[in-house]
């Protein structure tokens, strides 16, 4: 793992740069915490899925219609 990713703040700096947005110094810590809270929630998306589990893209209109 690159050294930068060992440092939570370094990881956040990288994703901010990639997004191309600017965060004021006084909001940096709040945004960094928000980023990590979001990543913690999204951890469930790492659970393995079957090959046939395709994306929804949009809800299928025929499913569940009585």
């Amino acid at each position: 793992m690159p050294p930068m990713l060992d440092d939570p703040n370094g990881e956040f700096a990288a994703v901010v740069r990639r997004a191309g947005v600017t965060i004021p110094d006084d909001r940096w810590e709040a945004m960094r915490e928000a980023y990590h809270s979001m990543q913690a929630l999204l951890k469930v998306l790492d659970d393995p899925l079957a090959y046939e589990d395709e994306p929804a893209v949009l809800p299928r209109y025929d499913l569940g219609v009585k």
Partner: protein
Amino acid sequence: MSSAPLPTLAEAGRRIAAGDLSPVALTEAALARAAALNPKLDAFIEITADRARAAAKRAEREIAGGRRLGPLHGIPYGLKDIYDAAGLRTTAHSRLLLDNVAAADAETTARLEAAGMILVGKLATHEFATGGPAFDLPFPPARNPWNTAHFTGGSSSGSGAAVAAGIVSLAMGSDTGGSIRLPAAYCGTVGLKPTYGRVSRRGVAPLCYSLDTTGPLTWTVEDAALALQALAGHDSLDPGSADVPVPDYRAALRDGIKGLRVGYASRFNQDGEVGPEQTAALDQTAQALAKLGAEVIEIALPSNTQFQACARAISHSESFAIHAQDLRTRPELYARVTRERLMLGGFLTATQYVQAQRLRRILTRKVDALFETVDVLLTAVIPGPAPVLEETDDGPWRRQQPLASVFNVTGHPAMAQPCGFAANGLPLSAQFVGRAFDEATVLRVGHAYEQTVVWVNKRPALARQSQ
């Protein structure tokens, strides 16, 4: 007209048809209530008095001339200020769109105008239908008519406030993660999120293409049925619109619910951190439905964490894509809370977005499977009564994720409606959910339940004391 809250759509329609109520008088009453109450509620960004008066006179002439267009003709309504109305500004409550004058009506606006309704104004929203109540915007946040120190819910904040205060009997909202149902719940109104694709989104500022829905906030379930009748239908120019037949929603209300199977997701209350007052109100709602002849069956929804991960990954990714250019070049024009919540979408990966869409399909199938054994679901939509406005979470990451977004993920129709009051006098709310495109059953259950309760006649004190 008296200074009472405006009559329901159904009552106003009946009285106009009978010649007992004039569209001009009704519109003047709405404008007078807006003028009296808006300084306390900040529900409206713009009150369109001249346009409304002209439309009311036109409606009166048409009806007197035997050209009544239907049950909504001559009745005032309001639009969340993300809906286009030709010649009026659509600001989305944002500095970025202060000079944005709509060239044409949104499809939904056009349908309500074609039904003869009278637009009285554009309503407050959370900026771009996201973020939260903010005090660093050109317009103040709306206030809850039940207690103006409390949050309206959002993002259709002005819509909830205006309907609860009886200024209008129909206000349009939009719902990407609960933005119709949450203000309906906190303000004690009915709020219907139709099935994804049932009502056009064309001409409504987007937040998240694959989750956005448009729909009505009303005082009664019957009014929600009347509004949906006018709004529903295929729009070939909306890429998300579905070409599915539209039934007679009002006729379905007469069927009662004897023998209907209601799936009560009581365990979801714990999963969603629902408080004791709201839980007790939902239990009582389930008991009331059983007394009406429904069979109430305990069901289990998939884990809330899975729904929230889906909703968050999809909505943040798509909304960042929509706003990326402005967030990079003129971020200072957004409210802080909007800017920060939108920016989070830039920190997601493409893999997370795709995985969320894969999980979404699985979750939708699981909820569809529940409808093999029940006809409608009963769930929580809010954890408890509205919080104090100044104490509302305004951080970039919401500490408590909205329960309502479950059915944005799956696309099913879902309706919030009052189911009691907390000890502090603020409304509590139940959510009924139906099969895809089966809004009729949702409305049928909600209407039957509404006939058994007394609070449909209970308005906020502020609404009773106006003028």
